[in-house]
């Protein structure tokens, strides 16, 4: 279980990454996932260099195979991260979408 307080604290940081665009600098397709992500396989995880130069890691959503390439333009979107555990809170966070 993740502390609800930690989830709440994290939500405040998410704002800073909304509405950003950037380019994929590396990607992988996860086929063997951690327990709480098992239902989602296979899913791509990308490292993105956003406009201000920061590197951000996240899942790529609404993707096609042709999007899995270095230099692909993406934007940040706000999505559910995983199913809730016993804490009953659905964690939301940043993912990427091709654009």
């Amino acid at each position: 279980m993740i502390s609800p307080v930690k989830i709440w604290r994290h939500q405040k940081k998410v704002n800073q990454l909304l509405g950003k665009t950037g380019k994929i600098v590396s990607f992988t397709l996860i086929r063997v996932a951690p327990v709480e992500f098992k239902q989602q396989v296979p899913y791509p995880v990308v490292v993105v260099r956003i406009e201000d130069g920061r590197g951000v890691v996240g899942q790529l959503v609404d993707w096609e195979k042709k999007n899995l390439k270095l230099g692909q333009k993406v934007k940040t979107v706000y999505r559910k991260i995983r199913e809730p555990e016993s804490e009953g809170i659905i964690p939301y966070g940043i993912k990427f979408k091709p654009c």
Partner: protein
Amino acid sequence: MQIAVLSGATTKFGELWEQSPRSLAQEVVSQAIEQAGIEKKETQALFVGNMLAGILGGQENIGAFFADELGLEVPAVRIEGACASGGLAVHQAVLSLLTGKYQTVLILGIEKMTDYKPEEVAQALMAAGSDEERKAGLTFPGLYALMAQAHMEKYGTTEEEMAAVAVKNHFHACLNEKAQFKKEITIDDVLKSAKVADPLKLLDCSPISDGATAIILSSKFKVQSSRDKPVFIAASAVATDTLALADREDLISLKATKKAARKAYQMAGLGPEDIDLAEVHDCFTIAEIMAMEDLGFFEKGKAGQAILKGETKIGGKGPIINSSGGLKAGGHPVGATGVKQIVEVFNQLSGQAGKRQVKGAKIGLAHNVAGSGALAVVHILSNL
């Protein structure tokens, strides 16, 4: 002050379901003490390298736990630095000797992983990553896959070159009684194995293992007989980098490795060209390729080809890499790995490596990495 490795012992690595952490520790420590030709009570402190006893086994207070089990009423401390816990424990032990407070210390690297489900182990290992990486659903194969993809893009590194690392290390493991996988494989076997995190496949990955390793270091050694070649610690260095992979300037090398190596070479007054053999942190095949370059053995982008050509295989022009089978085929009980690397280099430099002996080896290096490169430990050993 000169610090000598008096002895080194390791259990077999693998699925050791009949053994407990206590029995593994007893086995290696009694062997190490006997080999060193000292009394147990001569050891003045115990350093334990371990990552997962708390998160998987629910047992903390590991320093005291093993001191009690081993019947040692000495200062005991557990050192945690993810997969570099073992290397870090050796580093701290070296520092303790350099203070002059202790003259002879025992280091135990130990991990019990196969008592738990693989997905539980995978999740526990991700404790070494960052919060953002866990939220992205990343795994350790995933993190190294991100580095592999970037390395392939920049240098044209191929999946065959990565596979060649696994093939070589399995070949070496066949010469090592203590290795987890004593089975030769081919490049084709690696390429056809199940995909884990593209481009990495199952046979690009080190396994989940149980195992323990112990060494005894001393600053007041005596050469036992003319047959014995004392082996000294010529350098012990640690460096850190960002915890999260995405925070780094690039994904094609590990800055912590480069920094720790630079410090270690400086301490020893040596360079990469002086190294006869090395045990490097091949948690994934791409990691060995990057280590070859970051430790200065090959130019950036050139290691893959050299490995494919067999230059780093026993009998090759060298440096000989992972003669023990490495993490890939030797096994990777995370807290034990960094200590086992020192044992392999010690065995090679003291001429006790048997069928896998690298002839005329004088200087060896051990390279242990935590997480996706947040920390690296480099040791240089010498018999000169």
